[in-house]
């Protein structure tokens, strides 16, 4: 799985961090998404999918390989 985020559209709601804290973080100064792991191991895939579904600004895209 490969993850991409669109930081320009991110609204800093933090839903990704709640769902997948090992994959996503928020910047200290602006709350904008930071990708910790663009190719997370399989055990984190479900969490990453939940984060993508929960993102209110739909800025997380997943490519399954």
């Amino acid at each position, binding site marked *: 799985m490969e993850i991409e985020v669109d930081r*320009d*559209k991110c*609204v*800093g*709601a*933090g*839903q990704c*961090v*709640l769902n997948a*804290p090992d994959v996503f*973080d*928020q*910047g*200290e*100064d*602006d*709350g*904008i998404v930071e990708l910790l792991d663009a190719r997370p191991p399989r055990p984190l895939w479900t969490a990453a999918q939940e984060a993508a*579904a*929960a993102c*209110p*600004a*739909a800025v997380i895209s997943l490519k399954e390989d």
Partner: protein
Amino acid sequence: MTSAEPTTYPFGEPDRLEPDPLFAALRAERPLTRVRLPYGEAAWLATRYEDVRTVLGDPRFSRAAGVGRDEPRMRPHLLPPDTIMSMDPPEHSRLRRLVTKAFTVRGVERLRPRAQQIADGLVDAMLAGGAPADLVEDFALPLPITVICELLGVPYEDRTDFRLWSDAFLSTTKYTPDEVRLYVGRLREYMAGLIAERRAAGGGGEDLLSGLVVARDEDDRLSEGEMLSLAEGLLVAGHETTASQIPNFVYVLLNHPEQLETLRADLSLVPRAVEELMRFVPLGTGAGIARYALEDVELSGVTVRAGEPVLPAMASANRDESVYTDPDRLDLLRKESSHVGFGHGPHHCLGAPLARMELQVALDTLLRRLPGLRFAGAEEGIEWKDGLATRGPARMPVAWDTAD
């Protein structure tokens, strides 16, 4: 019905925390329906989960396009154009990013020990005073008010005043339009006064208001009006919603004793319980703020024309049977799609992480420290708020078991 005449909305007076009884039929038969609110032009009301998410999240729907229109609304006054709720990205993002750092998941976790300390202090006082206590005045209001006052840098001792102005801000019928104008004006003067104090002090403050003054005066990242509107929004939205949801959640739990027992037996379920309760409780007395279509958009087979407003009914979306199994059942172990209790899209509640944390602390503390928590006397002893944009008890007497 085939009549083109819009239906009056809300369809009836809110009944405690019951979702509007017409929503289920509308989702099934007329997911987009023409309505007229107490103020403003006629609008579409969207009741299905998917449509509500589209209206809130799809860039073909706009808040900025509502500026200058007679927006469909519950409250007499229009939102000013310089509030974050009247903007679309990227203007909206410019303002929102000035304050998001205070509401990140990690930032909010740093506030948790302080919120816990406040909650414990309030329960200490309830225990010392003995049952019955008023869950609203003695716990639900002071907890979020203290937290948001400390975060913003607003003096807690001014709460009686800003509670009144905040109620006026959220008034549908509680106050007359003239009173609303007067009190909303007072809130603006008050906020301007706090900002002036920051300027006179010459900077250096750690609170959010000080941060906004720096963003305005040193970095020119927002206008004076935008700064004041943002600060007012943070103060009002930063306490009223959570203060309503605390007694709302307790009310729902006390009416679902089996679910309550599940939670009491395992307080590690509190975060999940908060999510399910956010889904289950219709906090608003009406639908969400209207979004204007920027082009023709089809929703559930109906074409919304460019320029038409659509009202997203979040309380209906959260009970959509195509998304949630047995949607009218409270199920704290439910693991289904994200609710839209905090909204969706760019305007998704900025304070959601703070609200979640406060609601978790509140439920955990109340259930842990007040064994046998129950309504004091009959449930009819609860007084419900009236004439406001939010639902919830104005007074909720509770009792608990004592050791002796």
